[in-house]
């Protein structure tokens, strides 16, 4: 019955209103504009990092300078002037990293409350699972909740800056081991200037006792956000993690270039869900976040599993391909995606499933919805290495068009270097037909209710992959994202 709630929610909100578009007026400490070695030293020093990490950053920066911006994606935007950005911005007083909850600036707490993110470790109601939150505001983590309770289970959940200080051996061992620092243009940039993000370590045999989540907020004007997330699941462990993101409405474009690395060791399972709702720009295509993100999971151990679920509704430009390297024998990768574009948004997103181990399997279910003047591309690679005997993939890729000024594109790449590989690819493209709309409206639904209902049906398979707590909210978000897409 959540569809009914969706519709209710849609009705309450005016067209063209991004409800997270407010700005928090808070004093911040910023790095000077521009990017050079001194800025990198500045960031590293602000974070009190060891020499090895500074060297790592500087090496990444050297490599980045020799690299070219990729142009293969089906997106177009004016050239980004990387010298015009601030690479570090932190609310005054939290530069030293997360403190306990009662020391956090009330204005920051109010910001998260307004965004609907609970930062208080309140007793939860019966039947509702606890969710631990790491709140990242511009370049720093403001606070991480439930740390003590998680620590009792041996789980480490903290900002990456804190992990560098407290658990350097883990960070040093795994950082860049899935996404090498010169992997691609934006990953190299991120490696040079990353500021904050989350760190998760689940020890052997532990099932993480609660849902973990990170909430990213860009607030400061003229800044880029470069977050770095690292999740390690030791042998036989299990974790479910969710990230959310929003930004104020601005007429400038802001850059967000993140790197996420997941490592699943033997028999471990990582479920990573994203609800991406960065400011998409206004109805004329002005403003919005440029979201250039590298996300990759390494199923390093046998029988490991990594599952990506993403709901992409925001950003002016989305460029992201959460991928799985299926290295361990019998490992499994999954990618479930809902990508909605409206207005002048451009989405080029998909996944890579790299089958290296024996008997590896992967499943891709992608649902693209294009409305307005937007362009929505699915780009996916499925490959089987020579030694990946019995690799299996199933891909289902469906696109739905609303109106006649948007575009949906599917670009699958399939490489099988092994004759026992078995890959299946199914793709459909359809429009929300006048017939279906008329049918729903004849039964009393308004046009927007009808569109929300049909779209929620279209994405149902993927919605069901999200953690229960976020399903209803996501359904609402889908309705809101498609506001004004008809008529």
């Amino acid at each position: 019955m959540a569809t009914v709630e969706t519709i209710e929610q849609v009705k309450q909100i005016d067209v063209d209103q991004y409800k997270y578009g407010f700005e928090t007026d808070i004093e911040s400490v910023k790095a000077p504009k521009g990017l050079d070695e001194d800025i990198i030293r500045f960031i590293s020093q602000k974070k009190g990092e060891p020499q090895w990490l500074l060297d790592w950053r500087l090496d990444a920066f050297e490599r980045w300078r020799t690299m070219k911006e990729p142009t293969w994606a089906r997106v177009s935007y004016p050239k980004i002037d990387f010298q015009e950005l601030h690479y570090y911005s932190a609310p005054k007083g939290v530069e030293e990293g997360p403190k306990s909850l009662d020391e956090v600036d009330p204005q920051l707490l109010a910001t998260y409350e307004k965004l609907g993110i609970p930062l208080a470790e309140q007793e939860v109601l019966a039947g509702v699972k606890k969710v631990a939150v790491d709140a990242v505001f511009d370049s720093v983590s403001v606070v991480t909740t439930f740390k003590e309770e998680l620590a009792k289970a041996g789980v480490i959940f903290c900002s990456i800056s804190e992990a560098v200080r407290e658990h350097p051996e883990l960070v040093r061992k795994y950082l860049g081991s899935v996404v090498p620092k010169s992997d691609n243009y934006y990953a190299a940039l991120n490696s040079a200037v990353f500021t904050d993000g989350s760190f998760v370590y689940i020890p052997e045999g532990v099932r993480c006792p609660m849902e973990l989540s990170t909430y990213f907020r860009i607030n400061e004007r003229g800044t880029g956000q470069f977050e770095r997330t690292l999740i390690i699941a030791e042998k036989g462990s299990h974790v479910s993690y969710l990230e959310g993101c929003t930004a104020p409405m601005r007429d400038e474009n802001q850059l967000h270039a993140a790197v996420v690395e997941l490592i699943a060791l033997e028999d471990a399972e990582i479920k990573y869900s994203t609800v991406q709702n960065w400011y998409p720009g206004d109805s004329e295509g002005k403003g919005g976040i440029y979201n250039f993100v590298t996300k990759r999971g390494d199923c390093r151990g046998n029988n490991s599993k990594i599952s990506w679920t993403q709901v992409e509704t925001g950003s002016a430009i989305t460029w992201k391909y959460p991928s799985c390297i299926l290295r361990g024998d019998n490992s499994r990768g999954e990618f479930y995606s809902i990508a909605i574009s409206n207005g002048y948004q451009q989405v080029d997103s998909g996944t890579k499933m790299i089958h290296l181990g024996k008997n590896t399997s992967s499943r891709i279910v992608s649902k693209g919805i294009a409305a307005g003047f937007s362009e929505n591309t699915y780009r996916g690679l499925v490959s089987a290495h020579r030694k990946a005997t019995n690799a299996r993939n199933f891909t289902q890729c469906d696109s739905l068009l609303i109106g006649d000024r948007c575009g949906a594109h599917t670009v699958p790449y399939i490489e099988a270097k092994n004759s026992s590989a078995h890959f299946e690819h199914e793709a459909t493209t359809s429009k929300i037909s006048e017939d279906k709309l008329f049918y729903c409206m004849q039964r009393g639904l308004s046009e927007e209710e009808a569109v929300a209902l049909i779209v929620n049906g279209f994405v149902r398979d993927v919605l069901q992959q999200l953690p229960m707590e976020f399903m209803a909210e996501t359904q609402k978000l889908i309705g809101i994202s498609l506001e004004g897409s008809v008529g």
Partner: protein
Amino acid sequence: MLEIKNLHAKIVEEDKPILKGVNLTVPTGEVHAIMGPNGSGKSTLAYVLAGRSDYEVTEGDILWNGKSILEMTPDERAAEGVFLAFQYPMEIPGVAGLTFLRTALNSIRRKRGEAELTTPEFMKLVREKGSQLHIDIEMLKRPVNVGFSGGEKKRSEILQMALLEPTLCVLDETDSGLDIDALGVVSDGVNALRSPDRAMLVITHYQRLLNHIVPDRVHVLANGVIQRSGDKELALELERSGYAEYRAA
């Protein structure tokens, strides 16, 4: 009372008129049948009554209880009590029948200024109306019309009609795709909805439906106009003689 006055209609972006001056009055409480050959404009009339946007009314008017509905959107007409049972009901993948029914019912109730039903109230109502049509809850957990047989689709249409309680029911070829048994179930469902507060317009090719749903009046629509009107005997006559004489017109 439904009053159709000198109604002319065509498909948007095409020049050829389909309805060329239909005049028809259906008093509340009566069931009228519209019969006619293929291509006579029967389905167009149904769509125009429900407000489908790819048809354009070029002349004339449609009054429902004295009020013109021409400028209303399909959902506004639904709120005014207009219901169309489709000849080919649409499939809506991923949307459970129960979700669809509840969304529709509450939309209409809201527009009528009535309170929305709670889940238990709704389920009770669906069970009650569904059992009359041999529809159990399991069928309604499946996506709307997806993989339904012809009979299931038509029974589901009548269930929607029973739940939404419209005052003007237009049934477009409800007998098509039905075997004898299903025809009986569907007709019983329709007959149960006959009421002094409700007008019905039953569109069909064949007289056989009218053995089950006995009309107060029968009209022959051919070449875009009502050619002849009579009582239920007219349907039997048509069954014998066919539409040949109207086709010529």
